[in-house]
């Protein structure tokens, strides 16, 4: 039962769709809970096949610890986002069943991306995730902003996926195979210099498609618009889901298919990482809409994560292998960024406000949310004692170990810049006076999710050992690179 998580998600996605079509209004009330049940079962199924290391469907689909790590991450993210979207969607749309069905399919697409081990699967799963994300982004059909966000997201996505596809065709042409490990063997055995040229150009084209998912500069332009216009739970999803599995494919391709060209792609990724963090942080400084601010912040976060891949070195048994840094960072970022977005959702549900100016005096109106904003922003800025610090510690550590001193220094400077805009929000919340001092009521479900994410952010910081083990298991399959 190696594909049981995927089967469960597919069955529940279709079940929700059918029940939404034929069920009565009272039955449809239960659909979000059915979706949550699906995610919990898929999570349990992932734990059940924990430890497997198999390659199925003629080598196209790889069920290894690395993919299981991302499946856990996908189902956790799915559960939390469904739980916070229940209150958000109420009153905004009447077609909630469709939303939860499409959302389940997008989590399914994430689990498939995590397992893709052939160019064909990579293309199909990326497109699957893209189409479901476009639909979710434009889900509030009557809302002009939601429409516009979907159109921009769609056009950028279609262009970058066409570029990526051309890169895939070139990779196939020079190696004669679609399988990631077979391509690596073909590259290692070739003496033809023209193969080497194509082997450098084609992955750069593929990087366009992956960079779009991860929101790396220069493929990031869609992110601020899509984040601002999309329904906020979808924004929360876009900021963690596609980014995480985009990294899964990037790591898999870089470390299994292209290790012999590592000397060529490391400088490229280092430059992209520097530009991504710097641009993300500098533009975030002048944002007035909290969703746009978090969009630029999440672009910058992708830049930090990429440092881990630049500093990757899997020889020896060092705790700073770079790869484990990326995995730890992704896990910490999942709870941190989701938490920050749930704070935004909590305020937006009650007041409809998404501008930083509207957060003035938040500490008197909603003290719990204001306090948690501090925790999540400390974590995003990488200040201890939070999960974000643990993540940054390991990616910057890997860069230092490999001698990328400038890169690590730029990363630290960027973290300091990011403190300014995170604390602009906190300043508004704590030190400015509210225009309307009436208290904001937070619904119980949102409060519960806020508590869970904040607890995880602090727990990872004080007791990180289980996460270290998880990361160490997950990267075991990548053997020795170099």
């Amino acid at each position: 039962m190696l594909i049981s998580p995927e089967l469960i998600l597919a069955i529940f996605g279709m079940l929700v769709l059918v029940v939404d079509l034929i069920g009565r209004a009272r039955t449809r009330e239960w659909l979000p809970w059915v979706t949550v049940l699906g995610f919990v079962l898929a999570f349990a199924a992932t734990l059940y096949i924990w430890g497997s290391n198999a390659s199925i469907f003629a080598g196209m689909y790889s069920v290894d610890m690395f993919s299981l790590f991302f499946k856990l991450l996908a189902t956790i993210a799915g559960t939390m986002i469904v739980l916070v979207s229940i209150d958000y969607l109420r009153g905004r749309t009447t077609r909630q069943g469709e939303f939860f069905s499409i959302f389940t399919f997008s989590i399914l697409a994430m689990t498939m991306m995590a397992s893709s081990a052939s160019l064909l699967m990579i293309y199909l799963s990326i497109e699957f995730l893209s189409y479901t994300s476009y639909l979710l982004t434009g889900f509030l059909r009557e809302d002009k902003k939601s429409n516009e966000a979907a159109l921009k997201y769609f056009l950028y996505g279609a262009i970058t996926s066409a570029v990526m596809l051309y890169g895939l065709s070139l990779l196939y042409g020079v190696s004669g195979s679609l399988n990631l490990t077979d391509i690596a063997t073909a590259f290692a055995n070739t003496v033809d210099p023209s193969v080497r040229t194509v082997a450098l150009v084609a992955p750069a084209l593929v990087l366009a498609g992956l960079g779009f998912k991860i929101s790396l500069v220069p493929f990031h332009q869609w992110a601020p618009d899509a984040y601002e216009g999309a329904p906020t739970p979808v924004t929360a999803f876009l900021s963690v889901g596609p980014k995480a599995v985009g990294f899964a494919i990037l790591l898999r391709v870089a470390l299994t298919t292209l290790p012999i060209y590592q000397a060529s792609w490391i400088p490229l990724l280092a430059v992209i990482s520097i530009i991504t963090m710097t641009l993300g942080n500098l533009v975030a400084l002048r944002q007035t809409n909290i969703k746009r601010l978090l969009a630029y912040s999440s672009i910058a976060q992708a830049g930090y994560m990429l440092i881990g891949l630049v500093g990757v070195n899997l020889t020896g048994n060092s705790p700073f292998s770079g790869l484990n840094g990326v995995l730890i960072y992704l896990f910490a970022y999942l709870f941190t960024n989701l938490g920050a977005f749930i704070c935004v959702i909590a305020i937006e549900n009650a007041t409809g406000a998404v501008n930083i100016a509207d957060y003035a005096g938040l500490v008197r109106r909603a003290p719990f949310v204001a306090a948690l904003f501090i925790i999540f922003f400390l974590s995003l800025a990488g200040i201890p004692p939070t999960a974000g610090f643990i993540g940054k510690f390991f990616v910057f550590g890997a860069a230092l170990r490999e001698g990328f001193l400038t890169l690590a220094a730029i990363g630290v400077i960027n973290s300091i810049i990011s403190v300014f805009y995170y604390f602009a929000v906190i300043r508004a919340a704590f030190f400015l006076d509210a225009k309307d001092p009436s208290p904001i009521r937070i619904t119980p479900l949102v409060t519960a999710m806020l508590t869970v994410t904040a607890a995880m952010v602090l727990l990872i910081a004080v007791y990180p050992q289980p996460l270290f083990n998880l990361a160490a298991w997950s990267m075991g399959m990548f053997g020795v690179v170099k």
Partner: protein
Amino acid sequence: MLTVNHFILLSAILFCLGAVGVLIRRNPLVMFMSIELMLNAANLAFVAFSRYLNNLDGQIFVFLILTVAAAEVAVGLAIIVAMFRARENVDVDEVNELKG
């Protein structure tokens, strides 16, 4: 005598035409057609390589690209139609509620 190089050259030309089309046209439908041209450039490259390598994987890939492109059209046109209903105008330069 046509070799694989000719086909790849043609596909590269098609790809560049599509890319230029996307960059200079402002109507989402025309941009969409240009994107289809880019996809078909990749299809041509896959089929040519598949023939040259005597390996059927590439042709199967093309079948799936064709299906996925049809799904893409469905999603994309749905978004454009929803947009047109909401504002009676689809020129991408005038779609500017979101900026900053």
